[in-house]
């Protein structure tokens, strides 16, 4: 993969895959114009981290799709390398391009969790976050694959059920009947297995009758007047439809890779942030100053965490290095240290807690940052970001 050099490219081009490999960078015309204009307007920053912060700020204050699009372009490379590494490591049936799509589609989640208050390194946080998103998605898919449809109905949240059905184009009134039917199904048919819950079989006719009776009673109070009665057969049909929708919705729809933004989105974007947003949002000087300040702060944070880690025992240091460099799975770490997989998780958690407390206390006394649970929460994210950057091998930059 050729890495992009020009600022305009970095914030306006997208990866195009051929088969499962990087083919080329393709530009989005609107983003290119938008970025071009930004760069022309006077004496602005010249580093990509400056512009990453700029767009993050625009995103945070306006949730403008243009900002999301620029950052999505910016994070293409890092997402590509994460997807590549994961597909090599995990040996999954999903292709590299699939993993890439899965992760890049979650850019909003990454932005939501990233807090630039104490850090300027969106890229290294994204690297960590994309890795987790991919792992998480693969885990969910694997789990769903093992489940029968009847079990899957028990293993979806109501939100997911509603989203999945909405995704099939179902209208709201019908949706309500499905949700009620699903609740009746879950309450009356749970199976008796305590451990082997993934293999739940289809209910017996008598159970369907009971579910139908319950549905037909409850619809009188829980659904709008005029809802029709449902037969056991119809309820069964509904549940099959619901399970299929949930299953389909677990897998992200393959987005056309050649078209990073669909035309509708792109047309609605415009070339500039709307209204006075831009001016009030950013005077270049301020952002540049903030960037510098953050760089200093980041260095300090880095020193604090480095010295805290240096004081940990050897096993714990190994644990952190293994996990955050992403080269080892939990099981491999557990084997190497001759401990249980769950012990790895618990120990990492308590180590992260110690680092969090350490950093929080330091920030209170040194930076005089007023500490709140919200600030603590973003510090917890910063620690992840920092650890993943700290233990980063040169693998991705040399690939």
């Amino acid at each position, binding site marked *: 993969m050729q890495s992009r050099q020009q600022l305009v490219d970095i914030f306006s081009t997208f990866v195009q895959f051929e088969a499962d490999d990087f083919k080329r960078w393709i530009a989005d015309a609107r983003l290119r114009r938008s970025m071009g204009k930004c760069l022309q307007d006077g004496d602005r920053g010249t580093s990509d981290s400056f512009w990453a912060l700029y767009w993050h700020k625009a995103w945070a204050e306006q949730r403008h799709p243009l900002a999301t699009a620029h950052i999505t372009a910016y994070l293409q490379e890092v997402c590509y390398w994460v997807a590549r590494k994961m597909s090599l490591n995990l040996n999954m049936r999903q292709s590299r391009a699939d993993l890439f799509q899965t992760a890049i589609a979650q850019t909003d989640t990454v932005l939501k969790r990233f807090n630039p208050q104490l850090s300027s390194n969106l890229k290294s946080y994204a690297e960590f976050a994309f*890795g987790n998103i991919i792992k998480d998605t693969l885990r*969910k898919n694997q789990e769903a694959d093992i489940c029968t449809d009847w079990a899957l109905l028990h293993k979806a949240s109501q939100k997911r059920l509603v989203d999945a059905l909405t995704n099939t184009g179902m209208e709201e009134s019908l949706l309500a009947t499905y949700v009620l039917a699903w609740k009746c199904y879950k309450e009356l048919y749970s199976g008796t297995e305590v451990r082997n819950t993934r293999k739940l079989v289809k209910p017996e006719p008598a159970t369907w009758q009971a579910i139908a009776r319950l549905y037909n009673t409850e619809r009188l109070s829980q659904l709008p007047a005029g809802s029709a009665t449902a037969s056991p057969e119809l309820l069964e049909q509904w549940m099959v439809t619901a399970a299929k929708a949930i299953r389909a919705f677990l897998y992200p729809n393959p987005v056309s890779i050649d078209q990073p933004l669909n035309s509708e989105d792109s047309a609605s974007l415009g070339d500039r942030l709307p209204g006075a947003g831009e001016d009030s949002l950013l005077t270049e000087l301020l952002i540049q100053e903030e960037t510098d300040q953050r760089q200093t702060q980041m260095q300090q944070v880095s020193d604090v965490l480095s010295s805290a880690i240096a004081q940990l025992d050897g096993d714990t240091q190994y644990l952190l290095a293994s996990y955050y460099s992403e080269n080892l799975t939990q099981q491999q770490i557990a084997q190497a240290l001759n401990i249980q997989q769950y012990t790895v998780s618990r120990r990492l958690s*308590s180590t992260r807690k110690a680092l969090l407390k350490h950093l929080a206390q330091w920030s209170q006394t040194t930076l005089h940052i007023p500490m709140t649970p919200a600030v603590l929460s973003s510090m917890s994210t910063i620690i992840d970001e920092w650890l993943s950057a700290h233990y980063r091998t040169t693998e991705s930059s040399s690939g």
Partner: protein
Amino acid sequence: MMSHNAASSHLLSLEQVLLEIPESAYAQPSHPYSTSGATRRAYLNQMTLDTILPWLRAEQDQPVHLARQSATWPSIWEFVNGTVLTVGDRRLVLVPSEAIDGDELRVAQEWVDIPAWVADYYVAVYVNPDAGYVQIQGYTTHHHLKQQGTYDAGDRAYTLDTADLTPDLNVLWVAQELGLAENPRATVAPLPTLAIAQAHNLIERLGTPDLVFPRQAIPFAQWAALLTHDGWRKRLYEQRQGMVEQWSLPQWLRAGISGMAAEFGWVKPQLQLATGLGTRSTEVLVCRTLEIQGQPYTLKIGPSPDSTSATPIWRFELAPVDPAQMMPVGLKLRLLTEDLQGFEHNEDAAIAPVASLYVDVVAAPGEGIVWAVEPTPAGYEPEVLRF
């Protein structure tokens, strides 16, 4: 089992801690429930509790307790999902879910709007019984859930997207350790009081297992008022399982202490009677042990010396388990009506060290009496004893 385990759990991220479900948690629920869904709910909650409680106790410097006696859970899980425990002076509701997607935290309104049930924090827990682990997905505060959560009227629940939770439970502990001031609770409206007859009617009406969703069959305020009363909630649970009245004293005397009452510690003393000191001529028919400020006491019920067959008078007596001990000054024994109201001569207080406290009461057949002690005994829940 191991193969499933290996296949899926190595993919988990570690921001959220992963805990192994102990083998002992795989037992079937020991109490009956009215639907298979409720049985599953009980099972998942018990499993969550059996996994998370030992972990919290190992990791936390502060004391970690169940906020309820274990015998109470069935009468909660029959109706709602969730388990409450205390860590230090904070209450946490654990909300287990089997949802693979982990898209939302869904908390039954009871945990949010019943004043006595409100917690400071709500923790989303993913349970995977097949692979043998639970994973904490994040937490939120009562305040946040009530202000930012979406109320789902169809389910009487508050929901919050998982993305809006604080993913790292460490944030909660560190905030506590650093003493960061934050009031996690929003205000909740007080509940109406139910008249005894009204409560009995509701228990009768909602007590049939044919009514699968009793919590949505009546207005929430009424339902909440019924549910928050431990004695009434237990009776409702029992009725739905087709159990006979479990808290009838005459019944205990005829047929022995009921199964439910025994779980809460009621026993029939066998031989203690003969060892009674000369001054104590009261016959003890049933008793249970209470822990008050770390000390063990016995609460005994028997006929008062003034009792006649025409007018039976019952005596509730509270004394230290160790007869050499005295009742500390300030301790109070109090009797209340079934709807928790006081009445004349319903209290005995230790104004000087005494051997025991007692209150005599004349109860009509079928009348319910609730005992209470101040300071509140460990794990105290009002029980409606029927005479």
